């Protein structure tokens, strides 16, 4: 079976971390897109959705340029936090997060928009602040969409290949996630390892879709 579990464990670490960031940032962005009206909203939306359409390698290249060690952003991160994103597992987190963000934002925005505005007004009329309205009315009524978005984002993070390869490279034990390990195994003729990893990923993907469809039917 799987000879080396390192890529699997690394993938879990990278994807879970990326999902945490995606959910936090994504909730904020989805909230703004769902509840605020401002000029250029469609442009912002189009930009945020880009990772879903442009080639992953192109996305990875942008990130490499933006966060490289010689870029202002990369230098700032290194000198302030001692954080290097290129060819590190943190870089893989960045790649997975950016790639998975739109997959989270889309269903969450739809879920937030579908909450009846009268219910939010009813809460405000009963004296509640915007924060309480969100916490006690909007989020509880949109939780199914948020959960579905989170699961989709996690699955996308697990499966990312091109973007991660561009930003974090292919360093076994450090940045070699499962999709990259599969490519590596096939290239070096390790058919058994490749088959085992492919089976694992397939089972995982089917389970994810099943979970999402289960979560999108229910009481409220």
């Amino acid at each position, binding site marked *: 079976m799987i000879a080396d579990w390192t890529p699997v464990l690394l993938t879990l670490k990278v994807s879970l971390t990326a999902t945490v960031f995606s959910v936090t940032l994504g909730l904020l962005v989805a909230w703004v897109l769902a509840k605020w009206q401002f000029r250029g909203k469609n442009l912002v939306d189009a930009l945020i959705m880009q990772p879903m359409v442009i080639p992953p390698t192109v996305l990875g290249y942008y990130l490499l340029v933006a966060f490289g060690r010689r870029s202002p952003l990369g230098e700032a991160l290194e000198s302030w936090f001692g954080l290097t994103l290129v060819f590190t597992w943190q870089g893989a987190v960045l790649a997975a997060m950016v790639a998975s963000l739109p997959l989270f934002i889309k269903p969450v925005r739809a879920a937030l928009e579908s909450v009846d505005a*009268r*219910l939010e*007004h*009813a809460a405000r*009329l*009963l*004296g509640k602040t915007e924060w309480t309205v969100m916490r006690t009315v909007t989020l509880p009524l949109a939780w199914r969409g948020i959960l579905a978005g989170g699961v989709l984002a996690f699955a996308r993070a697990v499966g990312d290949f091109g973007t991660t390869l561009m930003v974090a490279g292919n360093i076994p034990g450090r940045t070699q996630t499962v999709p990259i390990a599969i490519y590596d195994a096939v290239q070096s003729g390790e058919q058994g390892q490749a088959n085992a990893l492919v089976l694992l990923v397939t089972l995982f993907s089917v389970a994810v879709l099943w979970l999402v469809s289960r979560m999108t039917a229910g*009481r409220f």
Partner: protein
Amino acid sequence: MLEFRVVKSYGHFTLDVAAQVGAEWLVLLAPSGSGKSLTLNLLAGLVMPDAGFVRGNGRVFYDGARGVHLPIRRRRIGYVFQESALFPHMTVARNITYGLPRGRDPRPVLARWLRFFHLEGREAAYPAQLSGGQKQRVALARALANEPELLLLDEPFSALDRRIREALQWEMVRLKEELSIPVVLVTHDFDEAQVLGEQVAVLEHGRMLEMGPRARLFAHPQRHETAHFLGVENVLPARVLHGVDGTGHTGVAVGPWALEMAADPRFAPGDAAFVGIRAADVRLAVDERPRPNLLPVVVSGMVPTVGTNRVQLVPADGTPLGSDAALRSDAGPTLTMLLDDYVAGRYGHGPGSRLTIWLPPDKLFLCA
């Protein structure tokens, strides 16, 4: 005390409504699409007015000139939506106590309103498990538990069937005795305005046609549009014949008839006006004792309803009651009256019958 003037435009539609309400029930009565729900939205701040002001109990909710817009949560408004808008993920008890400040014991408040609205035993139910009438009761309880300083009711009973609506109206009558805050109720049902209103305002196309104490408005609307909308079946074009005589009466011509009625100082001889009378106030003359407003008529149509018949009458000499264009009467150029089933059967009244009717002068009113 609630005082407001709110203005809001959407393309071709402009709403401009002003009123003052003390600790009493104001019913905004209007057909749908005339802006009555929008008025409540503007008062509560759910929609931002273009101009005007809203003051509640001396506090400024909104002032267009000074740019003041008090957040919705600070207005202390109880609001009931047309279709309850209960929180679907909370129980009845949680819905009712949702707005109570933290640290306050919700149990006495909950018990009081559960009892008041006959909801005992339903506190653990979710909104989806309630009937339409129960949902509106919970919505009312939720609004009232928060001790609002102003209550706004947006057609709260219109989605309910008639029997439940009438039962809830009884509870509203009880509620009137409990509350001493301004209440604004929006409805298109003039029966509801009759039962619950102390002040009644009639809206049309975003404007206030007329506002006044309920009894005065229903008995003597000052405009023919108001009369028509308040369900006065007979609103006929008329011309004022002579002014106030020694008896305080005035004479008006309607078709071939010269009618006597109480004087209205707004009109001078020669003025065009409308004369209104409810179908229920048109009497069958049972004797020939001479008095004003005895009129020979012919039955032109008859619609049976439960216990009574809705009867259409035209002048016996065949003169029309006015040009069709000027008429706001429900049945065209005819006079409508109600005729008891028993009487109609006993005397064989039907289409073609000749009758003498009497229009009591104190039931006739002039309107512009």
